[in-house]
């Protein structure tokens, strides 16, 4: 910032010659000099999603709008549902001991995974208003895995769906793990003439399998 503007009212952290702790002090000092009037931090009220409908069906609608596929399956038939969705011979891996696919964990070198067809991960939480699923680091193997795989399958218990993002952050401890991500569809771009392209850099498809105990079997869609 070579140019000091003449209407400068006296603030600013000086010129760029300082470094390290000098820069830190200069910035903090400049903030204090600005002397902003106190503004209270508002409580998050009056914005919670009041929708009383079934969060599971809302989630399914939202996820489909985001171009994800959603299927309700019995807890015990995740493997079958996954195999039915992808052609025979597709390489399928999982980060969970619950399913009988090739296992991977955080120590797997992600650089060897570029050829992986399908990754099946346990989702922790779903959000009805936007179809997003929270995936914590412990459920994804190496962090790059859910982005490198050609197709991503997230398995989510249908009881783990909350109505909106406020409820999601109430429920989540985002700092518990080093990394976590809301996934709300397959990788996409509209950067060429605003034409939607699915499978930009990451997965070409996202499937969310909503699991339920067998006794819910009658609730099919």
């Amino acid at each position, binding site marked *: 910032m070579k140019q000091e503007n003449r209407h400068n009212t006296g603030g600013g*952290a000086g010129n*760029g010659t300082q470094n390290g702790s000098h820069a830190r002090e200069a*910035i903090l000092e400049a903030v204090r000099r600005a002397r902003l009037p106190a503004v209270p931090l508002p409580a*998050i009220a009056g914005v919670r999603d009041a929708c009383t409908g079934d969060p599971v069906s809302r989630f399914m609608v939202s996820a489909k709008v985001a171009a994800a596929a959603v299927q309700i399956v019995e807890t015990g038939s995740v493997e079958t549902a996954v195999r039915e969705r992808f052609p025979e011979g597709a390489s399928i891996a999982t980060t969970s001991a619950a399913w009988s696919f090739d296992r991977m964990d955080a120590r797997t070198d992600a650089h060897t995974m570029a050829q992986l067809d399908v990754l099946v991960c346990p989702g922790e939480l779903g*959000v009805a208003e936007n179809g997003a699923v929270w995936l914590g680091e412990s459920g994804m193997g190496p962090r790059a895995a859910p982005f490198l795989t050609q197709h991503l399958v997230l398995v989510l218990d249908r009881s783990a769906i909350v109505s909106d993002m406020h409820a999601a952050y*109430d429920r989540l401890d985002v700092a518990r793990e080093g990394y976590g991500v809301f996934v*709300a569809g397959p*990788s996409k771009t509209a950067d*060429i003439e605003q034409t939607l392209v699915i499978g930009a850099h990451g997965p070409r498809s996202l499937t969310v399998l909503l699991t339920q105990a067998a006794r819910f079997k009658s609730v099919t869609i």
Partner: protein
Amino acid sequence: MHDAAQNAVPVDHSDRAARFIAKGEQTTWHDSVLWRIREKRDAVSGSVEGWERLRDLASQIKEHTLSKLDEYLIEFEESATANGVQVHWAVDAEAHNRIVYDLLKVRGVRRVVKSKSMLTEECGLNPYLEARGFDVVDTDLGERIVQLRGEPPSHLVAPAIHIRREEISVLFHEKLGTPAGSSDPQFLAGAMRQDLRARFLAADAAITGVNFAVAATGGLVVVTNEGNADLGVHLAPVHIACMGIEKLIPKPEHLGVFLRLLARSATGQPLSIYTSHFHRPAPGRELHIVLVDNGRTRHLSREDFRASLKCIRCGACLNTCPVYRRSGGHSYGATPSGPIGAILAPGRDMEKYAALPFASSLCGSCSDVCPVKIDIHAQLYRWRQVAVREGHISGKKRLGMQMVGWITRRPARYRLAGRLARSLLRYAPRRLLYGRWNAWGRARELPERPARSFGEWYAAEREKE
């Protein structure tokens, strides 16, 4: 083009806009496609109960954070450091670029992948690193397209919105070896996917921007639709996140408010595809955060303008702006462009960007759609006053304004001028009225001149009674 280049030549918005408009059909397309995004934004925001309350909350949370920014910066630094993140401070663009350069240099980095960051654009980081021998690759598809063309992004969210698919086809044919004439977006994006995947896997370091930083937990949130930020960060040994100090929010619960607003305002999506939360580096990896001032604390001290620091870079004000849609992002000569750019850039360099606050009809649509309720159009108007006061407008405009000021100050003068104008307009030859001096008349016709003024008509009607 970049701020850091600091070329003092003032940006002539109308001249640049004229060049964009010369492309005719493309301008019409640009206008309509951006308006479609605005319509999508309207549809999804309208379906959220309490949308206006959400905007109020977001605005108040940002104002609160800015009012105690020093405390939140310290809290953030402490939490992040405790998480094993290394925090750096940069007073300006040069210091920021230097910090990033030193980090890369010491680690022997050659190949850098970047995801979208308006801050590094503002600081001119790419040219800085390229001049020092680094291979820097932007990985957002739109950013990569403009990088390959040697241009800055023209839109906050859609960096290549000014380019048609045929031009991208030619570009990819040259740079990626795609078959000549292939212009299907699916195919072109697929070609870039192949090219960039190899670069992600080979990268030595990844640089990202930051959408939100949470003071209480020391966490960073980065949002993309393509997944490019994550692919870069998770595969490279070093992640450097660059953020302006205004990106802070107090607690994780505040993310709920901003994330509900951000994608809906930006693209009409209820949420972007990937909302990544970084708190600790992966085992054996490094995570660095560069906190950048670059004029922000100075802006904080400007009571009339500090509200623009609430911006969350959604681009809604661009999509709705009748001037932006028809003049294109490059007409602003600044990043970001559009209404928000027109109130941020003069704060950084008035001499260079004095024309931008005039690139507006002051219709106020930008302020109406802003998810954090920045008074954008009011700030545009106030910047104009600063520009005039400080002598940044042309002599012609100044003379005109002084004349109008002189005439309107006295009712008698005003009435006389009206009478003169009405008769003059009737008899003066067109060549004179629409001469080179009349920039206004280049694309407009003067209205029919009335026989008498409203004042005269009113007086006559009163006579009759």
